[in-house]
């Protein structure tokens, strides 16, 4: 440890492991403090650290009991193939049954999981992962590098069906160094690779797995029952390598209808529910034994126009500006999301991201100015179609509010609401103006790469800005904090000024959970604590 006062949460991983071990074994205060002071900590700091560690030990999870978690939509296309995970339901099960190389923390850093140590060369083009030894699969076999190579290769190559292949597209090859070490060789630097590998799709499978009717993983639970569209049930894996899997049984399924889900939760039929309708927050907090589980996140909704459609007309820029100026952001955040979100500023990075630029002025509702922009075009009062679907809370409302404000100044939008099924395949990226909903990504760079880089498959606006892409790639290698801050500010400003999409609100992940559930996680990437909850949840009344 360095010669500055350590805080419990900031201890290096191996240090905190030692500390926990000491505390559990009953080391006295004097012994622990002695150890820490020998390493250079002051007495006060060491005392505080000891206090916190003991407290954490007292809140240790109890074993036993059963919990039922109710997610959102499920269906026959629920899958146990990590490469094909598409929904929160899949992600939750992924964490129940599988493990990954790294695990993401609440602050969107990473922790070692199946990879004990993660090292890179100086310019982040070669990453080495030293694998944990002694890890067992659910079927008793041992975890080795072959499993990692097999799992990772499924995301590579042009014919990969993986949903996350773009996150690792800069990897040229995965190499096995020995049975417990692998190496990834990249074609361009990526300092965030370990973080990307902690996301949902990069779960490790046994070498050669092709049958996903069940899951053989290294996760804290084993599959007791898996019926897609019905339920998944896990029972604890006795030989789990880590701390976790405290319940006797963990059941997870989906209740698609939000009213039913809320009823089930309030009636006590399920112990946790995903996507609490924000308007019901007061009711949940007012009910004994029930709480809201919300995570400040950078997830957002937007209305994205295809910049390459409708003629490459410079007057189109006025249309996009008008749409941005007609966004009723306050009403979305305060009225629809009930404060569980933040005002969007027409670019994807909000305060939940580390690289958030606070200097950007907030765009506001300004129908008069919108009208001025509209008058620069020749559209007049002809209705402009916008396609919407209920892909997230507020996704349809953002269009309806825009329509309402527009009508006041004589601008007409025709909001066509379509069903959510098939939306992503047939409507998004196809229609000239359509809504979208985005989950938060671990880093601003990943987020912007996925959605705004000219070469990205998900560049919904088809924005061609080479300067943006250059800057985006360049900043990945920058270590000087001031320079980095400036570059990220530039990137966000570019999107805010030039991209044209209307991004009126960011939303938190808002779930609800019963009081007797402990061990909640808070990784702001998805529902149920970033879908990390299965490892640590337990029943307080077990």
């Amino acid at each position, binding site marked *: 440890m360095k010669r500055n006062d350590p805080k419990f949460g900031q201890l290096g991983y191996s240090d905190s492991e030692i500390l926990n071990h000491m505390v559990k074994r009953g080391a006295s205060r004097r012994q622990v403090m002695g150890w820490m002071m020998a390493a250079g900590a002051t007495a006060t700091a060491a005392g505080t650290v000891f206090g916190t560690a003991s407290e954490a030990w007292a809140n240790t999870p109890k074993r036993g009991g059963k919990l039922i978690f109710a997610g959102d939509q499920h269906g026959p296309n629920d899958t146990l193939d990590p490469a094909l995970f598409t929904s929160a339901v899949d992600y939750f099960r992924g964490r129940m049954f599988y493990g990954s190389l790294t695990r993401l923390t609440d602050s969107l850093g990473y922790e070692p999981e199946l990879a004990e140590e993660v090292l890179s060369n100086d310019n982040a083009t070669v990453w080495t992962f030293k694998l944990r030894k002694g890890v067992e699969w659910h079927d008793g076999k041992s975890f080795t590098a072959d499993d990692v190579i097999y799992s990772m290769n499924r995301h590579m190559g042009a014919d990969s069906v993986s949903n996350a292949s773009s996150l690792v597209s800069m990897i040229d090859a995965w190499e096995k160094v020995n049975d417990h070490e692998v190496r990834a060789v990249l074609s361009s630097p990526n300092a965030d690779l370990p973080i990307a590998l902690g996301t949902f799709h990069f779960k490790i499978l046994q070498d050669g797995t092709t049958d996903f009717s069940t899951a053989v993983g290294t996760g804290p639970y084993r599959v007791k029952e898996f019926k897609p569209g019905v339920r998944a049930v896990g029972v604890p894996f006795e030989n789990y390598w880590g701390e976790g899997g405290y319940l006797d049984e963990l059941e997870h399924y989906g209740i698609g209808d939000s009213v039913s889900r809320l*009823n089930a939760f309030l009636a006590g039929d399920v112990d946790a529910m995903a996507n609490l309708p924000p308007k*019901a927050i007061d009711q949940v907090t007012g009910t004994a034994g029930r709480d809201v589980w919300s995570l400040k996140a950078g997830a957002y909704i937007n209305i994205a126009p295809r910049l390459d459609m409708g003629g490459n007309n410079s007057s189109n820029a006025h249309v996009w500006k008008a749409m941005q100026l007609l966004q009723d952001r306050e009403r979305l955040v305060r*009225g629809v999301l009930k404060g569980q979100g933040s005002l969007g500023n027409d670019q994807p990075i909000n305060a939940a991201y580390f690289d958030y630029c606070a200097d950007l002025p907030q765009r506001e509702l300004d129908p008069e100015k919108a009208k001025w922009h509209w008058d620069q075009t020749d559209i007049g009062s002809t209705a402009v179609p916008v396609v919407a679907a209920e892909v997230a809370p507020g996704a349809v409302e953002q269009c309806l509010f825009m329509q*309402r404000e527009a009508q006041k100044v004589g601008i007409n939008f025709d*909001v066509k*609401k379509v069903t959510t099924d098939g939306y992503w395949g047939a409507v998004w990226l196809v229609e000239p103006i359509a809504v979208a909903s985005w989950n938060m990504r671990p880093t601003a760079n990943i987020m912007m790469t996925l959605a705004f880089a000219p070469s990205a498959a998900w560049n919904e606006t088809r924005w061609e800005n080479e300067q943006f892409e250059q800057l985006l790639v360049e900043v990945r290698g920058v270590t000087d904090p001031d320079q980095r801050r400036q570059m990220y500010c530039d990137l966000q400003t570019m999107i805010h000024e030039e991209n044209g999409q209307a991004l009126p609100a960011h939303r938190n992940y808002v779930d609800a959970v019963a009081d007797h559930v402990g061990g909640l996680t808070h990784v702001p990437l998805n529902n149920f604590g970033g879908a990390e909850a299965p490892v640590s949840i337990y029943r307080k009344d077990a």
Partner: protein
Amino acid sequence: MSSTPAAQDHFVAPFSADVSFDELPDAPPTQRYRPTIVGWIGITITAFWVIVAVFGPWLAPYAENDLPFPDAYEEFQVPQAGAWLGTDVEDRDVLSRIMFGAGRTLGISFAATLLAYFTGVVLGIGAAISGPKVDMTLSRVNDAFLSLPTIMLGLVVVAAVGSSIPVLILTAGLIYATVVFRLARAIGMEIMVSDFVEAAKVRGEGRWWIITREIWPNARMPLITDFGLRLIYVILFISSLSFLGLGVQPPQADWGSMVRENLGALQYGDSIFAIVAPALAIATLTVSINLIVDDVSAHGGGKLAKRM
């Protein structure tokens, strides 16, 4: 109920008429229909809603998507000055939306039921009086559609062409046409084999004469009474589509979708008018139509049973 086809086949009794065909004379009873008190109640309520449907958009205090209290950021507010029935899930005025919704709900279901009737009766009677080949083809195709769940059919159509009002009318109309077809065909068949039609054929009367002079006068009573019920099922069908997100689209108001989008009021709203008002509207409309239907059919026959 919303997705149940109600059909007859071979049997004498159509839905709620107390009339037996063995009892029908050559010419149907021609007394004018005089409503009883029950009938009058039905007529009054129905007329009320029809007036609201027609004049609602002019009389409503707000436009259907307007906010009475733009700075409040609330929902399900209690009835107060400025919003006599309170506000709904998006803080819009419930009363205005009921009034706009009346036109839409009544308009769509009426148009759809008319379409169902027109198609079903024409094809059904047509099948009854035509030769076995035509009858067989039409009946088989009809049965094929009847055996499929109505919601699924609605879903397929909406997924294919989007959910606009004309699409809803066509979808509901054609789906329920299958039921009406069966009914009309059954009635038509019964009449065709009765003695007076045999006599007419022997006399050499043409098809058209048989249709207008024998079939229609005898068939119209059960068909008309069925119309009222069909209307109700169409209203419920469209509200079930709304439950699945496929019916009338926001921000347009329609009673069925209003019940759906305001379900949360029962759990966490300050006021439940947002859901009670449209549900009551649907209920009063359907009950009043039924009262009329029952009254008319009671007038039509079955006097012996009444005397018991």
